[in-house]
């Protein structure tokens, strides 16, 4: 076979910083990915799954009311939350699950923060008849309990991670370690554009369907490319998926929105591009990480579990250095306002992650003119956040409901 040998690096970032014992599995995965990526049979199968199972293409919706409310440029929403399982995560999951199947694997494992990647993996495992284990920080299990419940209904085993900060970073560690112990039959279905090569490239590849659709849809709706793309950035998969097909079009601005959390003190936020974000090597890749001066990884906080992570896609770190992607941050409170804004103006309930993009997009819209167009990626829908948002936005009623529910002695 005649494939171009791919660099493991995006500029200075990326690589494959793992113990030697993990390299055979990563090499096999790399080989399989490059073999099947352009294989017509594989592509057809994946396309069909994306259409018939995931519900693609997702709408590119002209948010007329939000546009009027913000006052300036035309705002479109890419409705990834309308996919099966409720977030963009399913795009990457179906690609990798199909690959795992081709590789003869019988078990999928995944890390999850918000639970959306875990849920998508659980669904795919059920669909493909594979065993499924999902590693999830204990803190995240509590705050995203609906997804824990749904994953279990689909037959996945949800394994609480009690080490470290008990959030996404530690779930990745646990999944990597489980993988090392069970390489033969297991595929590690990593959920964002990070980790050792080939994951960052592979995840971005499977997520690029978002940007490709937007390109086609914009051509039809506006007859020209968008002026600016806005997406929230946890690990970077929904943002890269949207941005990547547009990177060569210099007129298209790309803006990534990080989680500002409660403030800029260490441990209070997940803004990798901030003074505590430094180049580092963690979880198999070189990128920018929130860490102290000695190289110990710092705890993070965000109201949204999916953005609550100390590292970031190596490709995004590179694109930022090249000046191709800009980064901003939105704090917990602003994200809740973004959520309320979209509910009120459009009747759309975004995930808390996506609400960060909404909050910033609505503000940024004012700096554009009326004939310009913005696309905001609504990476997921907000049902999963009930326990967080209800408490934050309607605490009294919610707590009253919960205590009523606890004292009720019969099920419906």
């Amino acid at each position, binding site marked *: 076979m005649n494939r171009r040998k791919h660099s493991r690096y995006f500029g200075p970032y990326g*690589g*494959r*910083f*793992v*113990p*030697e*014992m993990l*390299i*055979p599995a990563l*090499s096999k995965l790399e080989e399989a990915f490059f073999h099947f990526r352009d294989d017509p049979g594989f592509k057809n199968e994946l396309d069909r799954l994306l259409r018939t199972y995931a519900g693609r293409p997702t709408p590119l919706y002209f948010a007329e009311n939000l546009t009027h409310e913000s006052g300036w440029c035309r705002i479109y929403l890419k409705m990834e939350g309308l996919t099966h399982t409720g977030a963009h995560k399913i795009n990457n999951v179906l690609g990798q699950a199909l690959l795992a199947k081709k590789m003869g694997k019988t078990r999928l494992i995944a890390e999850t923060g918000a639970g959306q990647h875990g849920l998508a993996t659980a669904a795919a495992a059920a669909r493909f008849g594979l065993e499924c284990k999902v590693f999830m920080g204990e803190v995240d299990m509590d705050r995203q309990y609906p997804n824990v419940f749904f994953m279990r209904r689909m037959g996945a085993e949800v394994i609480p991670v009690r*080490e*470290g900060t008990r959030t996404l*970073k530690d779930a990745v*560690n646990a999944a*990597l*370690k489980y993988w*090392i*112990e069970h*390489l033969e039959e297991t595929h590690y279905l990593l959920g964002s554009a990070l980790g050792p090569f080939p994951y960052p490239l592979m995840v971005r590849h499977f997520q690029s369907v978002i940007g490709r659709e937007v390109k086609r849809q914009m051509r039809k709706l506006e007859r020209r490319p968008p002026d600016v793309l806005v997406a929230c950035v946890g690990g970077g998969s929904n943002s890269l998926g949207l941005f990547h097909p547009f990177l060569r079009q210099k007129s298209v601005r790309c803006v990534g929105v990080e989680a500002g959390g409660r403030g800029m003190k260490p441990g209070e936020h997940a803004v990798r591009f901030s003074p505590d974000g*430094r*180049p*580092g*090597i*963690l*979880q*198999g890749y*070189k990128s920018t*990480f929130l*860490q102290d*001066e*000695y*190289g*110990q*990884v710092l705890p993070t906080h965000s109201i949204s579990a999916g953005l609550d992570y100390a590292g970031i896609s190596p490709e995004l770190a590179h694109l930022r250095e090249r000046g191709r992607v800009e980064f901003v941050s939105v704090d917990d409170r602003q994200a809740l306002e973004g959520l309320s804004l979209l509910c009120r103006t459009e009747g759309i309930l975004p995930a808390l992650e996506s609400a960060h993009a909404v909050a910033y997009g609505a503000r940024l819209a004012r700096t554009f003119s009326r004939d310009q167009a913005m696309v905001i990626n609504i990476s997921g829908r907000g049902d999963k956040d009930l326990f967080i948002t209800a408490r934050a936005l309607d605490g009294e009623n919610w707590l009253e409901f919960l205590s009523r529910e606890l004292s009720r002695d019969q099920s419906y």
Partner: protein
Amino acid sequence: MTNPIDTLFNERNATRLMTHVVAGDPDLESSLDLAERMARSGADLIEIQIPFSDPLADGPTIMASNQKALDNGTRPEDCFKMIRRLRERVSVPLLVMTYANIPYRRGGKRFAGECAAAGASGVIIPDLPWDEPLPGLRDALRNRGIHFIHLVSPGMSDDRLKTVLGLASGFLYLTLRVGTTGAASGIEPRGLEFLRKVKSLTRLPVAAGFGVSAPDQVKRLKGRVEAVIIGSHLINLRRGQGVEAVESFLHLCKSSGNGRPRPE
């Protein structure tokens, strides 16, 4: 000057013991004391781990040790100081073990200088395979006569194995199983098979570990390897039964491993 690791392995007819200590667990004084007692009880090489927040290759036991050490505020410079003090008390070769981000943050050259100043003879960085760069590190270590110890594991491709054998110096760190560190049940045939293969390809000394937790396992490896590595098991012993248990375990291994009695 000859590296003490080479001096140790020049004499080929003994099976050496290599032990593992996480600096700062439960505190630096205790880990210094533990390492010193290990040397006096028969350890021939000691690996001192600089704690890291996310130790990828380590199982629950060593992970918890890393966490404990970090909770105590243990910094890399404190670990180097501890190694320096240990160096003054014992004569066995000392190795610095840590994860790539620690030398990466400090700069490879500075890290190598710190290792040299502390009197370390080797460096082990499990998440730094030979084909990934860490600017300055490998050259600086070589210039200071410190061995960068390569890990080899079952399942490696022949190509990679041959490349590593070409690059390696000091000894090879051979994992008997594919997994994280921690007490597993017994030595797997796959590990022994891999060991035989490696042995047939190189004259380099081999230190084998991962899952060694009983004197009879040491005995089984006797004659097949130049050193046996015992890590998590000793940490568990110390945690559960105290340093004396570590000492008597090492004495037992020593008699079954039949290593050279140490005039310490």
